[in-house]
């Protein structure tokens, strides 16, 4: 469906123009302390104001800061494709929803789920995103729910990071940096 894709593209482009993604992916962007959880990004970067172009129709009620925590943000990139995995913890008393993801170094970022039936792997798109229940967790993991990156321009960026903008229905917009795992190092789940 071209419409949401175009919207993602437009938003991606907008981000680049706004300079929010300047120098993205260079090792300089990586946290100085590599042992630190790469996902502290959410806590470090205050939420951006909701995008005026957001036509999802949902009016985010003001959430208390830190209600949504993003952890373990990591990416695997191949020459043609990529996937981002992360964990979202909802400390709030109301459910939230990850509505949309943008990544300035990919042509598109889509929320998908790999599902198995009798050995056959099927890709199920989630255009409406993923819910994070109140007090619960959303885990995006290899072989399950994930953010698919089409044609990432970052291949071989192992050890670096790629920038992500995550739009939540309630918590608004959060920035995160995904640490790019070396190819073939994603087998052990954290």
């Amino acid at each position, binding site marked *: *469906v*071209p419409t949401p*894709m*175009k919207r993602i*593209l437009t938003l991606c482009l907008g981000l680049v123009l706004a300079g929010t993604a300047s120098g993205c992916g260079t090792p300089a962007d990586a946290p100085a302390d590599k042992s630190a959880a790469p996902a502290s990004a959410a806590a470090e970067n205050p939420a951006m104001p909701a995008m005026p172009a957001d036509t999802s129709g949902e009016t985010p009620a003001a959430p208390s800061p830190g209600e949504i925590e993003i952890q373990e943000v990591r990416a*695997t990139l*191949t*020459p*043609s*494709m*990529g*996937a981002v995995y992360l964990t979202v913890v909802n400390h709030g008393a109301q459910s939230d929803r990850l509505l949309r993801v943008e990544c300035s170094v990919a*042509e*598109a970022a889509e929320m*998908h789920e*790999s599902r*198995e039936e009798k*050995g*056959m*792997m*099927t*890709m199920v798109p989630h255009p409406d995103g993923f819910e994070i229940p109140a007090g619960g967790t959303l885990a995006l993991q*290899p*072989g399950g729910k*994930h953010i*698919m*990156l*089409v*044609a990432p321009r970052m291949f071989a960026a192992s050890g670096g990071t790629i920038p992500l903008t995550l739009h939540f229905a309630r918590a608004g917009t959060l920035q995160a940096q995904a640490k790019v795992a070396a*190819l*073939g*190092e*994603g*087998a*052990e789940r954290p």
Partner: protein
Amino acid sequence: MKPGPTRRMAVTAVALLLALGCKGSPKFNGQAVEPARPAELTGVNWDGRPFRLSEHKGQVAVVFFGYTYCPDVCPFTLAKMKQLYRRLGARAEGVKVVFVSVDPQRDTAAKLAQYVPAFDRRFYGIHIEPDALEAALKPFDATVKYGLPQGGLEAEGFYLVDHTANFFIVDRQGRLRLKFPPNATVDQMLPDLEKLLAT
């Protein structure tokens, strides 16, 4: 005719044989492929050389299907294989890892050369001609379903492919013996491979 001692002895012998037979066959974590059948795959490896699975008898092979535009499952599968090789150490020489593309239109040998060796240069990445693919998948009971091209992307005509993602284990005699589900772990596969390496 009433059952005489000969018949009773025969029954006992059969029972004994069955018991021994059960004891003699090793227990596997993987699901047995019944009947075990000769496995064959013919194509071109990522390095441009012709590949024929039956020419690799004497080694155990782990065969699976995928494609290079696969965002999630295939890199995860190849990562497991990399981990498997690490765990096998020197014994990895006896185990072939064979990635077979189910997307021959996009996955030329050149494309596979950018992909498969990036995980491990010892892995095979096989291109099978489009008109031969269906027949090649059949003995593995593997299927492929091509998604519709998505519009609006620079990567023109981009599409996803649903495919069988089981791991297939071929023994040293070239027979397809075992099958593991896509979510199988290296811990589950390793003991089976070790048993097959010993037989």
